[in-house]
């Protein structure tokens, strides 16, 4: 029973971490329909940015993540403009071409990281890494509590931004009907570019979490492609709070299966859950019917 309780607690924390690294994709893929398979590569790139700041200046990884956020926002603006000019505006098959584009970007990022940092694992230091909070016989790693707090904060901020601000509403509008937005005099491409910038900026913080939770290496992005897309699709495209809840469901399922059945089964159970959800609710757990 204690083990089950431990598994649920760990699962919630792990799920929050999954949620945090998937939120950016929920905007870029969920709202904008951009097949952003380079999302995890951007994430790993952000981790290396955080690593440099932490290593060189001893700045806390979370603050380092905040510091690189504006850079990643600009990076996102440029990346989307490049994608739009070279692929999206060229026709109906842009989606398929877009996947190729982002795969290419992911490989370029991976190789650039290898050239710059080598292939070794990199980690950061902070007071909350490697220590745990003790409650009776249970110990909870502080780094996972940090992931929980940051994921909750990011979800709230993004939800408020998308629902309360003019630009946020414009982003939701462009996700629903791009042509209608154009008829109202707004430029949907600029709105999408801004939204892609926001999605990439979020990765600054998420990248900090990635390297806080575990050491990173240049090819770590491959481990997160399946997980992040699974979370976003299961949540229902474009729902921020739904993304967090879906990630928590996934995290809890993984840890319960790991504890009670065996770790080998965890990925299979996760993707079986995704298939099950899509069979019953094709729009995802929190998506609206089109």
């Amino acid at each position, binding site marked *: 029973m204690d083990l089950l309780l431990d598994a649920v607690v760990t699962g919630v924390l792990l799920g929050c971490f999954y949620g945090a690294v998937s939120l950016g994709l929920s905007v870029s893929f969920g709202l904008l329909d951009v097949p952003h398979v380079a999302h995890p590569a951007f994430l790993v790139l952000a981790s290396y940015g955080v690593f440099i700041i932490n290593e060189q200046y001893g700045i806390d990884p979370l603050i380092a993540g905040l510091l690189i956020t504006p850079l990643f926002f600009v990076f996102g603006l440029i990346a989307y403009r490049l994608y739009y000019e070279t692929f999206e505006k060229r026709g109906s098959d842009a989606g398929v071409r877009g996947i190729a584009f982002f795969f290419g970007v992911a490989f370029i990022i991976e190789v650039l990281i290898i050239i710059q*940092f*080598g292939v070794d694992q990199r*980690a950061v230091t902070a007071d909350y890494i*490697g220590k745990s909070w003790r409650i009776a016989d249970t*110990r909870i790693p502080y780094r996972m509590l940090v992931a929980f707090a940051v994921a909750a904060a990011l979800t709230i901020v993004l939800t408020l931004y998308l629902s309360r601000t003019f630009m946020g509403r414009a982003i939701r509008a462009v996700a629903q009907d791009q042509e209608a937005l154009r008829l109202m005099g707004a430029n949907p491409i600029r709105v999408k570019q801004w939204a892609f910038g926001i999605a990439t900026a979020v990765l600054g913080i998420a990248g900090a979490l990635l390297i806080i939770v575990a050491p990173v290496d240049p090819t770590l992005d491959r*481990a997160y492609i399946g997980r992040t897309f699974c979370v976003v699709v299961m949540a229902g495209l474009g729902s921020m709070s739904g993304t967090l809840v879906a990630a928590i469901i996934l995290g809890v399922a993984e840890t319960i299966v*790991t*504890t009670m059945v065996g*770790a*080998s089964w965890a990925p299979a159970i996760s993707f079986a859950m995704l298939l099950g959800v899509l069979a019953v609710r094709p729009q995802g757990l929190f998506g609206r019917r089109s």
Partner: protein
Amino acid sequence: MTKKVTEAGSISRRRLLTTASAGAALAASPLGINLLQAQGAPIRIGMSMPQTGGLAGGGKPSLLGIEIWRDDVNAKGGLLGRKVELVVYDDKSSASETPAIYSKLIDVDKVDLLFAPYATVPTAPIMPLVKQRGLLLIGNFSFQVNSKVGHDMWFNNAPWGPADSWAASFLDIGQKAGGKSMALLSADQEFAQNLAKTAREVAGKRSLPVVFDQSYPPNTVEFSSIIRGLKATKPDIVYVASYPPDSAGILRAVNEIGIGGSVKLFGGGMVGLQFGSVMESMGSLLNGVVNYNSWLPEKSMYFDGTKAFFEKYTKRAVEAKVDPLGYYLAPFGYASGQLVEQAIKATNSLDQKGLAKYLRENTHQTIVGPIAFSPDGERKETAVLQAQFRGVTDKNIEQFRSSGKQVILFPDNLKSGELVAPFEAART
């Protein structure tokens, strides 16, 4: 135009005859043979090596070790009077890449000799091909890839020795410390599963109960729940067979969750804890862990050429951006070159069967010590070290260059200290 070609052809034939006569005369003398071979095609050694992907952290220093040997041997005039050249492809740490790469090396590049890639996973799929073609293959730290294939021209540079010796030495240490039960945690891939299999067999022979036996899939992010499950079974000995991306995660979870007071010995087969960057980033979390290794900077580990090799490696590792320590794989890459160098010099030939016969029947002096092979191409005797991390501090890679940070517990002839147990006591 036609005339010119004809005249040219006529002159060319005359010149050809003159050149051929002079060439034949030159070739008749021993000096002539050397000159011709030295000016001829280099001896080409082909291999794939993980330079990207999860195994690249090992592949790159291993390749650097081989390159240092190539440069040393070429500086001495090469082999058989010919320069040595390496033909290397990146296999991206993937087992699916290597069969095609080795087919190309054999059929298109037509290399003279083959070295295997670093690690078990990329090596396993090329074994049937190499056996079918009857080619010599120098293995590079793979584990038990020849046990079922039975290729008699396979020679592994790794210090493993008999299949069960790795687990046996670890369990020996644990049982001497009073261990009466074992937990087994292994990665879901070939190398780790081979280790886990031999550990189960050794435990079975010794009637040592295995109270926890779990594998985890690649890309596991968080190990807290696995460690909690393991801790609940209260084992005395914890044998971990993990790969680099996971080893750090497991150790971090052990530090945060705790492993329980019953554990006397923890570690065994954790790949990654031999690499400088991982050791540096793990720092004091390593204390107490008893893990395998291949080479450590203890007095007993220096042989002819070892010191000179590490002087060169340390300089070149910086510009190559590879493991600054390079203890685990680089000297064995160099030793691979020494093996073929000695065989070629002794047989004065590149005949693969002759080279294999020489390698099988002799003991070879290398910078990692004398190497002799058993019929299966593995070491006759294990030279795998089991060493305990002691007194390691955070963020200091230079500390690992001095002796005493990894105390050798096995083998007896290289031993430099006694086990500190239980595990939790050794961590302080």
